[in-house]
């Protein structure tokens, strides 16, 4: 298999493609069906943020290793407007678009790890990982 899957996100149809590819990658690692759904849902939210806030970007899916542990890594990147207050964006109920306020804190709960970087005018990158138990 390819070590990395790249999905270009330009429209809402790409959100579906990204979550299906993510699920396929996680299936290969033998995640439980609950974890597969959590991963696919997290990818759906990250891809949605790209469509909503940046218009276009990409999702990279990778299998990662940490000692004996294997996991899925999702990198969502865009070069949109960025998030001016990332701490606030991580709080529940906060949304800069005013319409969907669940994005980042929700993704953190679905995955095991999450890191994000955002600079106003330079875009946003979010990295999320889930380890196989």
């Amino acid at each position, binding site marked *: 298999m390819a070590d990395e899957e790249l999905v270009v996100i330009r429209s*809402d*149809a790409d*959100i*579906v493609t990204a*979550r*299906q590819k993510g*699920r396929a990658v996680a299936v290969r690692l033998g995640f439980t*069906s*609950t974890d*597969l*759904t*959590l991963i*696919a*849902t997290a990818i*759906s*939210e990250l891809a*949605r943020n790209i469509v909503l806030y940046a218009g276009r970007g990409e999702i990279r899916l990778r299998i990662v290793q940490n000692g004996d542990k294997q996991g899925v890594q999702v990198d969502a990147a865009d070069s949109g407007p960025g998030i001016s207050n990332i701490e606030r964006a991580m709080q*529940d109920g906060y949304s800069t678009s005013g*319409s*969907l306020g*669940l*994005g980042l*804190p*929700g993704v953190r*709960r*679905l995955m095991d790890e999450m890191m994000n970087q955002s600079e106003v005018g330079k875009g946003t990158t979010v990295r999320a990982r889930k380890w196989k138990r």
Partner: protein
Amino acid sequence: MEVPILKQGPYLIATVQSALNDTDLLQLRDALVAKVGKFRSRAVIIDVTSLDVMDSFSSRTLRDIAHMIRLRGAETLIVGIQPEVAFSMVQLGLTLEGVATALDLEEGLAFLDRSPAEARREIRSRGR
């Protein structure tokens, strides 16, 4: 992929497929709001059994549909939310507040058939 809507007696049944995108969902919303008047339906059942992901947008749109259908004078029942999907919805904080649900299509139909007036009261009381 457009969501097929079937008219069955006084009900409309919409069966959602897994690869549902936002455009399909909004089309479903518009079609249901229109068809509930065209067919003078008393209730709408949205079957999400094959839906593998319920994210913030789909959850919000389903809630919007239920509220719009109620404003049109009919009721909405979401059926077939899978265990994994229920789990991830709770993790994400999506509650589908005020929307009636049933285990599957069979339960949903039985619930509506038992007593339309009772079903209506029960659905409305959940919405409060």
